[in-house]
């Protein structure tokens, strides 16, 4: 028996629920020596902006208990170079490509980026990164730090992007909010085909000898196993409120932690920090999920979704 692992997000069809998270998988080529990329359900690129961004001052990363703190600052070559130099590589792969995009100053940049990507056949879906804690979005028009911290702003971005593309839209939510379900509902009502959660949690670490923050930018975003229970809780809360598919992430290290998210209501899961520790981890997770399903005689992944008993 081969279990059915397929997942549908809007018009996006995935052969299995396993994605790799934005910013943790480069542009995929970095992993080709270690992992058969074609086993993945999908690949989410590093967030792309309209113009190149050089990113934040170093040091940009430090390890914390069971976690990784980063303030990369969305370093990327910009949409033009991305389309010319990074996109062609995906021609060779049989994996849906999800391109993550973000605005630097104005909401209109999301629209411009989506228009450009709409023309690209190799792009299967677009993820709206409205939740990166390491850049300040759209401060000109509103006084919120992140779009993902404001239900109205979230709806505005999703609606605007929906108008210019037929590609499925996934909205990436921030855990740095009081009630994530409000934002998820706003994204759903505005037409988002799915939501992904969570992005990193804002956090900080101090070097006591030097009496300095460990990151040059002082505050960064925390990822890894340290944030998993928070992420699972947020997926569960969101699952109970919205109908669109949820892509769950935050500290997935192995099959068990991936299954935690699925049982809490995620349709798909995404692996981030774990790729740094074991660049082949995705094949192990996928094998583990299949093994679990066979062991429990579950033929379709759908039957596990949100299936915790409480």
């Amino acid at each position, binding site marked *: 028996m081969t279990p059915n692992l397929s997942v549908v997000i809007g018009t996006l069809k995935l052969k299995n629920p396993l994605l790799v998270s934005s910013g943790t998988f480069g542009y995929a080529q970095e992993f080709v020596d*270690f992992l058969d990329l074609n086993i993945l359900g999908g690949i989410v690129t590093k967030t792309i902006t309209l113009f190149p961004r*050089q990113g934040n001052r170093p040091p940009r990363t430090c*390890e914390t208990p069971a976690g990784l703190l980063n303030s990369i600052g969305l370093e990327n070559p910009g949409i033009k170079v991305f389309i010319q130099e990074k996109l062609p590589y995906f021609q060779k792969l049989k994996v849906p490509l999800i391109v993550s995009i973000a605005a630097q100053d104005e909401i209109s940049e999301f629209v411009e980026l989506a228009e450009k990507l709409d023309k690209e056949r190799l792009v299967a879906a677009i993820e709206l990164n409205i939740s990166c804690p390491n850049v300040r979005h759209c401060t000109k028009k509103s006084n919120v730090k992140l779009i993902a911290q404001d239900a109205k702003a979230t709806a505005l971005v999703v609606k605007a992007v929906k108008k210019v593309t037929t590609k499925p839209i996934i909205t990436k939510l921030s855990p740095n909010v009081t009630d994530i379900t409000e934002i998820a509902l706003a994204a759903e009502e505005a037409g988002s085909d799915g939501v992904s959660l969570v992005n990193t949690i804002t956090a900080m670490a101090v070097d006591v000898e030097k009496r300095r923050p460990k990151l040059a930018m002082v505050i960064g975003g925390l990822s890894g196993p340290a944030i998993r229970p928070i992420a699972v809780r947020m997926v569960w809360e969101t699952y109970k409120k919205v109908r669109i598919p949820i892509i769950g992430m935050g500290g997935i290290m192995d099959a068990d932690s991936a299954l935690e998210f699925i049982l809490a209501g995620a349709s798909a899961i995404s692996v981030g920090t774990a790729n740094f520790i074991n*660049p082949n981890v995705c094949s192990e997770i996928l094998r583990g999920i299949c093994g679990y399903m066979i062991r429990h005689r579950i033929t379709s992944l759908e039957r596990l979704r949100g299936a915790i008993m409480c």
Partner: protein
Amino acid sequence: MKQYLEIAKILKNTHIVGPYWKLKLSVSELAHRASSGQFVMLKVDSDQGPLLRRPFSIHQVKGKTVELLYEVRGKATEILAKMKAGQRLSLLGPLGTGFSLCDLSYVPLLVAGGIGVAPLVFLAQNLRNRKGLAILGAQKKERILCEKEFKATGFRVKISTNDGSRGFYGRVTELLEELLAKDTLLRKKAFLYACGPRPMLKQTIMLSKKYNIPGQVSLETHMACGIGACCGCVVQTLTGYKRVCKEGPVFAIKELTEEGLAE
């Protein structure tokens, strides 16, 4: 260049002196693909973490073995020092861009601060019989590393110690400056290779510019992935931020600035 994810067996884990240890690993593919200046990402497993891999320069390769020279600094290296022959470690490598060998008209001038000797021994072996000079800096005479290894490759060795217990009394870069100031021939023919703490590298870059001597340095930064995926390890160069794990860890001195190395 192809990279490998391997499980390596520890053949030997030897205490040298003070915080310094040497780890000898049996690997399969990784060894014969490695070139000097490249590094590996090593995973130390334990219940209490650490979470991420740690980068270590390739110190020497012999057949199917790789040697690392390491200094106990924190969590991962403390656990590493307790590991025994027969135990296994996960290794990723060879990674990054290593040293390029200088033209035959140059005299290789190696400058090492403390554990910075680690990648330079492999380099000296590649520059065997080139009549090079290695300048080794240590806190005190007991902590001078790899003197024998450098001599075995035909390098002359000069020593500096911070406490004056052997050789030049002072910093390794002060010794470097003294040598350059008085030896015009060396000044004309030298090609610098340096590895060590940031302040030492900054000083080396300053001297390289002052005396117009070409060279390369190997840099250290905090690394999360080691394979160019996270953009976490960047250093400021004249042409923008570069990833130490991919475009580096070895950079041409002319690409770097002293300010770029500020911490």
